């Protein structure tokens, strides 16, 4: 277990930087996490996805996969990759302060 500091507060994260306690997250932290991941400015579209991730986590206990995000968040998979390059499901989860989405096996 590691710690990180955002918006003047110390939070618990795993070794990949995902929050382990989503309750420690605040919206003010999101732009700082995003900046560290190479996203300089969070647009309304980013926020739509981030808020959706939080809702899904609260309802289901895990963040959605990119395929489910594309079907349900109102943002297409193509645009998700433009907003959150490389891995939208993982990156959006990290910025939204929820644990790393469970992979399928």
């Amino acid at each position, binding site marked *: 277990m590691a710690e990180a500091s955002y918006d003047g507060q110390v939070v618990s994260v795993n070794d990949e930087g995902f929050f382990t306690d989503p309750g420690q997250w605040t919206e003010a932290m999101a732009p700082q996490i995003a900046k560290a991941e190479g996203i300089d400015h969070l647009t309304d579209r980013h926020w739509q996805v981030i808020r959706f991730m939080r809702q899904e986590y609260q309802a289901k206990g895990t963040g*959605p*996969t990119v395929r*489910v995000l594309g079907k349900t968040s109102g943002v297409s998979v193509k645009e*998700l990759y433009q907003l959150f390059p490389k891995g939208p499901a993982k990156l959006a989860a990290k910025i939204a302060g929820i644990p790393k989405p469970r*992979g399928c096996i």
Partner: protein
Amino acid sequence: MKRIVILGGGTGGTIAANRLRRGYGAEDAEIIVVDRDDDHVYQPGLLFVPFGLADPARLVRPRHRQLHPGVTFRQAGVDRVDLAGDQVFLDDGPALGYDALVIATGARLLPEQTEGLTGPGWMEQVFTFYTPAGAAALRGALDRFDGGRLAVNVVDMPVKCPVAPLEFCFLADHYFRRRGIRARVQLSYVTPLDGAFTKPVCNRELSGLLRRKDIDLVTEFNTGEVRGCRGGAGEGRLVSYDDREVRFDLAVVVPLHGGAAFVDRSPGLGDELGFIPVDPGTLQATAKPNVFAIGDATDVPTSKAGSVAHFEGAVVTDGVRAYLDGRPLTGCFDGHTNCFIETGGGKALLVDFNYDTEPLTGHYPARAGLPLLKESRLNHLGKRAFESLYWHALLPGRDLPGIGSDMPRRGKAGLPG
């Protein structure tokens, strides 16, 4: 008399029907299995078809013949499940009412949901071995292939038997060596995952095997588009959503998977992908207590594999009986999964794991058993011998001696026995 309706006559549905039939007297329950066709495919055999190691026709047997004589087989498509009315609407005839429903309709391939996949080059330069027709067509294409780039791609998880695409790579490596053209073939495994496999110990072993066999590993590749060429005349490309490209002369693609189509037409029954949300321990649907699901149709966080359906069989049948008797459900499925991983050249690995325990090294089912996560001839023989066991012991719903539903802890390295 209670009526139990089972949708799907594949591995899970057949095991559930046969186990339930043995548990009830003929006067106590009517058991009906519904499937749209009468072809039960031994799906693990499809992997071998492209390499001429299995005959597709011999992998198929009539579904109704695998069912206990006291089980009714009804051949019809399912239109939708009416949860409130406890009835199933079929494509033909009146609605079928039930006291308990078991959903065993597996996973459906959705190649049309990936841009270009079923476009130019489909079944000419771009194949899947996940269907009997695709596996047979790929056999011809491999025979004609005399060098170039072969890309094996999993579009996205979940897929049935997630190790099968890796096994395909290993078998292809061996196949081209046998033909003496391996040096002219560039083999790559293109996956959306961040490694060869999700779980650390297994990932390490399988990544090592890929390296030793000179198979390129391309990770975190989310296929957005497949650009094949009509007639296979030219170089094709896999294009990811983040604009990376993998070029190919021949592509073997495992398409997106979803649940059965009727799930999408049944309000409240399935999740976004058409799988049935269930309690991972009891396999009772979250939608309604008289509905259960088994096998690939569920959303449980383990592999979609026949071994899982087998291990789930006892829990689902106990659950249905407890529900119908008005008793509390006591079954607890642990996520037990067991897979032979063919590694080419007459060898195979074996993995055994559950919800909480990742695949580990050691032996199965105990210290004196088959080696885990280690290539061996014995595991290969086990995999091939399993086909007979499947038809004659697993589908009838018999308990296999020494093979319990729960994952055995003894024999695994690093686990207290």
